[in-house]
C-alpha cells in the first residue's frame, strides 16, 4: 500500500475541536429478548482514529451496521456528518467495510470497483488509483473468486477509499493480511486521519489499535464500558522497582507512600505513584542501604484493559480467547 509517513496519534492537532463526524446517542438494538447493543453513546471526530474494541458478540458489528443505516436501532439516535444514518448524502461521504468484505465473485476486482463507482456516481478513473493504493493494481483483472482473504480485505479497503470519503468505518481491516500488509494498513490509517478523515476502526489487534488510534471505545455485552484516549489508557500508572533485600524495600516504600500503594510480586515491587517520583524512590532506597537494580515506569497495555473489562463483565473466557 502506498502511504505517506504517518503522524503520531495524539499529536498537536486536536480532533475533538471539530464537530463530530459520527455522533451516536443512546444507540440500542434489541432482537427479541436479546439486547445486542445497550445505550451506546460515542462520537468520532475528523482527524482521529477511534478504536472500537470488544470480544466477539459484544455488539461491535451491530453498532457499525446501525451507524451505516444497514439496521435500524430499537432506540437512540445517529447523526453521520449531520445526517441520519443511511442517508444517501451521508453515505456518499463514507467509506465502509463491515465484517468480511462482500463482492461479486464472477467479476474482477477492477469490475467490482466499477460497479461501486457507478452506483456512487464517480468516474471510472478513480478505480485504478484505488487499487494501486492497496497494492492490488497487478491483480485487479483477476476474478474475486480466486482472491485470497488478504486480497479481499485489500479490495474492501480500496472500495472504502474509492469515494475519497470523509469518514472511514472499517471492521477488522487487517484480518487475513500478512505482517507487511498489516504495517501498510497501519500507515494508511494514520495517514488518512492526518489528512483530516474520521476513522472508526473495529479491531481485535490490540497492538494495532494501540499504535494507530487516538481514542478507544470498548463494548462488552452491548454496553460501552470504556470511552477514553489511548494516551490515558497507556498513561503511566506507577513504578516497578527491583531491589534487594525486597522486604526492606517494601517496608521503606510503604512508610513513605503508604502501604496501599505498594505491592510486591515475585522479585519486583509495584508502586502506585507518579512516575516522576522515580528519582526520589531511587535515592530513598539507596539512603536506606538497599541495593537498587532498577526503577521503571509501569505502563498499562490495552490488552490489560481489555482483559480487565471483559473479565469484569463476566465475559472472561470469551474475551480472552479473542485477544491476539
Amino acid at each position, binding site marked *: 500500500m502506498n502511504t505517506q509517513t504517518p503522524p503520531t496519534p495524539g499529536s498537536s492537532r486536536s480532533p475533538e475541536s471539530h464537530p463530530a463526524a459520527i455522533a451516536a446517542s443512546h444507540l440500542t438494538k434489541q432482537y427479541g429478548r436479546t439486547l445486542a447493543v445497550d445505550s451506546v453513546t460515542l462520537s468520532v471526530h475528523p482527524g482521529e482514529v477511534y478504536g472500537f474494541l470488544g470480544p466477539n458478540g459484544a455488539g461491535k458489528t451491530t453498532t457499525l*451496521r446501525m451507524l451505516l443505516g*444497514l*439496521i435500524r436501532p430499537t432506540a437512540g439516535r445517529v447523526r453521520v456528518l449531520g445526517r441520519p444514518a443511511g442517508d444517501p448524502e451521508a*453515505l456518499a461521504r463514507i467509506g465502509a467495510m463491515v465484517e468480511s468484505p*462482500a*463482492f461479486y465473485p464472477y467479476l474482477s476486482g477492477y469490475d467490482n470497483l466499477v*460497479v461501486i463507482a457507478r*452506483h*456512487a456516481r464517480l468516474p471510472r478513473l478513480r478505480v485504478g488509483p484505488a487499487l494501486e493504493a492497496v497494492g492490488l493494481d497487478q491483480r485487479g483483472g483477476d476474478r474475486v473468486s480466486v482472491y485470497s482473504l488478504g486480497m479481499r480485505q485489500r479490495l474492501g479497503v480500496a472500495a472504502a477509499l474509492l469515494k475519497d470519503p470523509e469518514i472511514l468505518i472499517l471492521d477488522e481491516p487487517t484480518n487475513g493480511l500478512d505482517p507487511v500488509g498489516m504495517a501498510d494498513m497501519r500507515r494508511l490509517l494514520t495517514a488518512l486521519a492526518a489528512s483530516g478523515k474520521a476513522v472508526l476502526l473495529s479491531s481485535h489487534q490490540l497492538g494495532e489499535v494501540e499504535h494507530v488510534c487516538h481514542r478507544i471505545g470498548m463494548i462488552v455485552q452491548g454496553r460501552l464500558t470504556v470511552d477514553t484516549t489511548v494516551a490515558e489508557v497507556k498513561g503511566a500508572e506507577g513504578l516497578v522497582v527491583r531491589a534487594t533485600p525486597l522486604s526492606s524495600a517494601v517496608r521503606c516504600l510503604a512508610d513513605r507512600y503508604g502501604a496501599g500503594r505498594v505491592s510486591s510480586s515475585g522479585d519486583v515491587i509495584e508502586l502506585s505513584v507518579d512516575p516522576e517520583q522515580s528519582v526520589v524512590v531511587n535515592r530513598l532506597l539507596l539512603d536506606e542501604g538497599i541495593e537498587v537494580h532498577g526503577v521503571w515506569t509501569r505502563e498499562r497495555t490495552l490488552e490489560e484493559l481489555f482483559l480487565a473489562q471483559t473479565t469484569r463483565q463476566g465475559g472472561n473466557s470469551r474475551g480472552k480467547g479473542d485477544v491476539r
Partner: protein
Amino acid sequence: MTSYAAEWFKVVRRRTLWAFAGIWLVLAFGFEYIDPYVKAGALHDAGQHLAALRPLLPDVLPAQTVSGYSLWGGALIIAFGALVFGSEYGWGTWKTLFTIRPRRLTVLMAQVGAVGTALAVLVAVDFLVSAAASALIARSLTAPVQWPGVVSLLRGAGAGWLILFAYALFGGLGALVTRGTALAIGLGVTWVLVIETLLRGLAGSVPLLRALIKFFPGVNAGALAAAVGSRGGINIGIVGGAHAVAVIVGYAVLFIVLSGWILTRRDVP
C-alpha cells in the same frame, strides 16, 4: 441512471445468466419450432402435414414464438429473476450496495430495469431465431414468405416480454422473501407447473376457484399469449386479452412494491 448502468454491467458480465438465457432460447426453439416440425413430418396425409406446419409460417410468427411463454417459459424465467435478486444474499453484497450511496429503492429499481432489459434482449433474439426458422420452413414448402405487420410483431414481442418480466419479478420477490435463490426457484416453479395447474383443474367443480383463477398469473399469461394469436398455452377462455394485460401489469407492480417494502423494511445481514 448510474445505478441502472451498474446493475446492467453486473448482468452483462454474469455468464451464468447468459448461459441460462442460452438454454432458455434452445428450449424455446425446440418447443416452438423443432417439436411441431418433427411431428408434422410424421404425418403422411399431405393436407394434415401442411395444416400442422401452418402455425410455423412467418405470418403467424408472434403467436408461435410466445406460445410457450405462459407455461414452461415463465416457469424457467422465475429462476432468472431469483438468481438476479437472490444471489445478493448468497454473496452478502446487499450490505455493499446499501453503503455506497443510492437509496435501497433506487438499487431495486436499477435491478428491475436491468432484468427488464435482459428479458427484452432475450425476447428479441427469440423472435429473430423464430423468424429465421419460419422463413426456412416457408421456403421448404415453396410458400410465399409473408411477414406480419410491425404492429403485430411489436404486440407479440411486448406481450411476451410482459409475461416473462412478471414471472422474473415473481422469482425476484420469492428470492427476497426467502433470502436466497434455491427455495424461491423451487416454490415458484412448483406454483406455475403444479399448484396452478391443479387448482385450474379443480375450478370446474369449485365455484370459488372458478372466480379466483381469473386472477392467476398462469391463466392470464396464457390469455395474453392467446390475444396475440397463440393457440397453445393454458388459456381456457376464462379471461380476455385486456383483462390479462391489466392483471399481469398489476402483478408486476405488486411484485415491485412488495420487493421494495421488504428491502426497505428489513435489516441487512
